[in-house]
C-alpha cells in the first residue's frame, strides 16, 4: 500500500526542525531512518499530516568517546555503530546487541535515535540503554533536557518525548574495569523481533566475587524491565551455577509477557529466566570466569 498523503519537510538545521514540530505538534512525526514509521505509514496505521525528515542534519550523526563511555548522535545509523571500533572498545554491550537488530539493509538505514523513540517493547536498543543507565538529550524549541533511560520508556511505543521534541544525543556510560557484558535474545527467525532479549553486565573483584550487576530484559512487558531483585541477589556473591539460576528465576515474577501466535506468555516467562542466566554466564565468560 501507499501512505496517506502528507506534507514533507526537510529542515536544514535542528532549530528549523524544532520550529516545524513546534508549529505542527501532534500532527507531525519525525522521520529518522524510517524503518518502522514508513511501513506503518504504508499500512496506513500511522497517518501523520506532516513528516519532519532529519536526514539533512549530519550533525546528529556521530560517535564520540565521552568520559569513560560514549555519546552518539541520534541519527547515527545502526550499521555505523555495528562497525565502530570505538563502540566495540567502550561499550561492548551496545556493539554486541546491534547486529541482532533486523537485517543488514534495515541497520543501514535505521538509526539509534529512531529505534529508541519508536520504543518497540522487544527492540534491542531500549534494553541496552536501560541496562547501561544511559541518558538522552531531548531538544525542543525552548531548550534541552536530559532524560534517564529508566524514565524514558513509558509503555508500548510511547516515551517521555513530547510531540514538539527531538531526541538528539544518546549518552552511554562505560562499565567499570573488571566488568563483562553480554546481550542474548531468542527469536523464531533471524532478524525477527525478539521473543525475549536479555542484557547483562557483571562487575567482578579480583577474587572473582560479583561486585555488582545490571540486568535488563526486553519483550516481556510494555517497556524494558530492569531485574533489580536478581541484581541484589548476585551482589557480593561468588558466582556458581546455583546462584545464577536462583537469581535468574527471580525475573519471572517481574515479567508480564504477551501471549500470541509466536509464543505463549508462559514460554516467554520461562525464557526470561533462561536468557537471564545465559546472559550472566556469557558476561562472566568474557572475564574468563566459567560458571
Amino acid at each position: 500500500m501507499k501512505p496517506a498523503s502528507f506534507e514533507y519537510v526537510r529542515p536544514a538545521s535542528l532549530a528549523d526542525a524544532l520550529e516545524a514540530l513546534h508549529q505542527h505538534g501532534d500532527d507531525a512525526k519525525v522521520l529518522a531512518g524510517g524503518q518502522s514509521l514508513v511501513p506503518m505509514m504504508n499500512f496506513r496505521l500511522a497517518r501523520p499530516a506532516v513528516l519532519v525528515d532529519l536526514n539533512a542534519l549530519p550533525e546528529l550523526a556521530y560517535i564520540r568517546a565521552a568520559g569513560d563511555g560514549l555519546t552518539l548522535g541520534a541519527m547515527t545509523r545502526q550499521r555505523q555503530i555495528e562497525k565502530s571500533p570505538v563502540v566495540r572498545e567502550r561499550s561492548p554491550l551496545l556493539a554486541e546487541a546491534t547486529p541482532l537488530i533486523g537485517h543488514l539493509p534495515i541497520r543501514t538505514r535505521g538509526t539509534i535515535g529512531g529505534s529508541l523513540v519508536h520504543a518497540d517493547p522487544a527492540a534491542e536498543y531500549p534494553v541496552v540503554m536501560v541496562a547501561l543507565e544511559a541518558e538522552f538529550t531531548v531538544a525542543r524549541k525552548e531548550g534541552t533536557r536530559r532524560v534517564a533511560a529508566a524514565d524514558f520508556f513509558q509503555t508500548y511505543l510511547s516515551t517521555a518525548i513530547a510531540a514538539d521534541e527531538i531526541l538528539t544525543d544518546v549518552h552511554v556510560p562505560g562499565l567499570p574495569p573488571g566488568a563483562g557484558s553480554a546481550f542474548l535474545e531468542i527469536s523464531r527467525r533471524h532478524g525477527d523481533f525478539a521473543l525475549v532479549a536479555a542484557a547483562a553486565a557483571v562487575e567482578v573483584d579480583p577474587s572473582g566475587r560479583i561486585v555488582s550487576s545490571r540486568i535488563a530484559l526486553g519483550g516481556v512487558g510494555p517497556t524494558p524491565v530492569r531485574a533489580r531483585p536478581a541484581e541484589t541477589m548476585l551482589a557480593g556473591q561468588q558466582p556458581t551455577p546455583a546462584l545464577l539460576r536462583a537469581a535468574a528465576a527471580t525475573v519471572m515474577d517481574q515479567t508480564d509477557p504477551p501471549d500470541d501466535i509466536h509464543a505463549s506468555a508462559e514460554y516467554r516467562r520461562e525464557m526470561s529466566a533462561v536468557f537471564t542466566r545465559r546472559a550472566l554466564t556469557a558476561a562472566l565468560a568474557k572475564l574468563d570466569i566459567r560458571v
Partner: protein
Amino acid sequence: MKIDGSHDVPAPRQKVWEAFLDPEVLRQAIPGCEKLEAIGNDEYKATMKVGVGAVKGTFEGKVSILDKQPPDSYRLAVEGTGGPGFVRGNTLITLSDIPGGTRVTYAADVQVGGLIAGVGQRMLGGVSKMMADKFFSRMGELLQETA
C-alpha cells in the same frame, strides 16, 4: 483474546453501579471516546480515537449494555470498525463490596481483526489491557470527584 482484571474504587456499590451505566461518565472514562450518543434503550453510538505511539485510528461503533443485574453485574458489548481494523468485545462487569469501597471485576472476550491485528499482533494483548486499566482508573477518579 481474553482480558481480565479488577480495580478497587473508593465509592459505595450503588454509586459505582450508577456511574458505570451513566453515558456521560462512560464517555469521559473510555480512552479516546469522543462521542457517545444514545440510539436506543441502553444502546449507544460511539466514536473513539485510539492511538499508541504513531499508530492512530478512529473507530466508529456501538456500545450496548446487556443483562443488567443491579447492582451486581452487567455485560458491556462493544463493536467498532475503523481504518486499522475492527474490534468486537463482550465484557462481564461484576461489582462486589470491599472495605471502603467497591471492587469492579471485569472479564472481557475481545476480538480484533483486520490490518491492526495482523501487524500489531505482538502488542495487541498488552495494549488492550492497558486501555482497560486506563478506563477503570479514570472511572475511579471520576467517582472520587463526584464523591
